[in-house]
């Protein structure tokens, strides 16, 4: 009932990669807030866990879409997987109060976000 209905594999991949990009920005913003002392640890940790689930779902849906552009699709899946890993690490580091761990996870998150952007550009680039 609540699931957004996609018309084609390409629509599904586009929608899920947008969801992943938005979720990654949520993780980035909440980590910045935590680092500056503006967000409590429990809230930050729960938000990151929730974002992690969203990313895992998005990754699974991208992977299961039957797209003809298999290599570009694999690139997107890998980028979302990187995001998911970075967010999971960040959640653990926040729970442990491990600031260096959070900083490392933030860097990983930025790198994974850049990888997602690059994969999106490649997937949605006009084909000859």
């Amino acid at each position, binding site marked *: 009932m609540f699931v*957004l209905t996609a018309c084609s594999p390409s629509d599904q991949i586009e929608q899920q990669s947008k969801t992943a990009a*938005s979720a990654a920005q949520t993780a980035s913003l909440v980590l910045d807030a935590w680092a500056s002392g503006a967000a409590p640890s429990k809230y930050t940790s729960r*938000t990151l866990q929730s974002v992690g689930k*969203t990313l895992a779902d998005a990754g699974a849906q991208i992977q299961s879409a039957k797209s003809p552009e298999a290599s570009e699709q694999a690139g997107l899946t890998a980028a979302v997987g990187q995001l998911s890993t970075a967010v999971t690490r960040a959640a653990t580091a926040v729970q442990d109060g491990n600031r260096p761990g959070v900083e490392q996870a933030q860097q990983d998150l930025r790198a994974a976000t850049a990888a997602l952007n690059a994969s999106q550009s490649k997937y949605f680039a006009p084909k000859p």
Partner: protein
Amino acid sequence: MKKLLEISLGIVTSVGGFLEVGSMATAAQAGAAFRFQLIWAVVLGTICIIFLVEMAGRFAAVSHHTIADGIRERFGFNVFLWPLLATLLVNFLVMSAEIGGAAIALELATGIGFQWWALPVAFLAWLFLWKGTFGFIEKGVSILGLVTLCFVVGAVMLGPDWGQVAAGAVPTLPDHDAAKYWFMAVSILGASISPYLFMFYSSGAIEDQWDKSYLGTNRAIAGLGMSFGGTIAIGVLIVAALVLAAHGIDQVDDYHQLPLMLIPIFGFWGFVLFVASLGIACFGAALEVGLQQAYLVAQGFGWTWGEDQKPRDDPGFSTVYTVSLLLAAIPIALGLDPLRLTIFSMALTAASLPLSVVPFLFLLNDERYVGEHRNGMISNAAVIFIIALGFVLAVVTIPLQIFGGT
């Protein structure tokens, strides 16, 4: 001087009572996904609710009947049954969403999952209704609800381009995600034109023993109170656009994202303000919807009713809000996502509008009830417009829910 005080208190009550989980969630989603482009839906919804609230108050002040009373008496119980059932169902979903909103606020504050808070919130709401008076519920909780003004302060502090904000008040076609855009518009309208608001208002007018001398007060409270309430919803939308959308967060499908609207503006206090706003607004709305369920059933069946009476003097009335609160807490206690429930219930509210608004056209033109204070041309045109809008919403809501729902 007394009237001025009553108007001020009434406006404060309307402002504090306007924003609840529905208007907060829909405005946040709209701002994040479409920036200022859906401000028109908030403006349209606010104009519609101003007209309906004014009419509900006028009807009560002149005829000494609530809207529900009027429908039952004028059309008979068989006709009244349909709006009764539709409104009870929609109110049930809205009440569940409000309990969910208050439970989320408690989760954010404590770190303990929202499911665990659903029954305690429902119990606390029941205790307020059981022990409290109408004035305490109406004014006390709503005055606390003024904390939601932090969204307006936040919006001003962010310094939006007011030209673009004003441009958002004019409906335009979306350049992406059309189904989602229209679904958001429907949800915003559902959150703004909520039947419980105007039905509660008419019951409140009877509880406060309004008569014809309150017609001016009624007009001022409906116009100014709802306008200020709409301004807060626009504040939420602006903050979501300038904070969430600006950071690349264009999908708000998780309630954990919502505090991020205020944190970049107010720092840690932004988190505190958000939790307080959500908790107070939703708890207040849960009380009002709980009372409204009891008003509706008691008025429909001709039972004794009144929040100022002792529960033993109106046992049916007290039983309805007791059972309603308990039942509404169950879906949240079972883990149903409150944000998704909220968006769904707002869309369903929009779809049910014709059933609760059509009777206005008859009641507010019936001289036996409103005498010389019947609707003029503008009020009738507004009701006809809202009915037409309600029918359109009823037809498009389900397809939009399927194609554009989150």
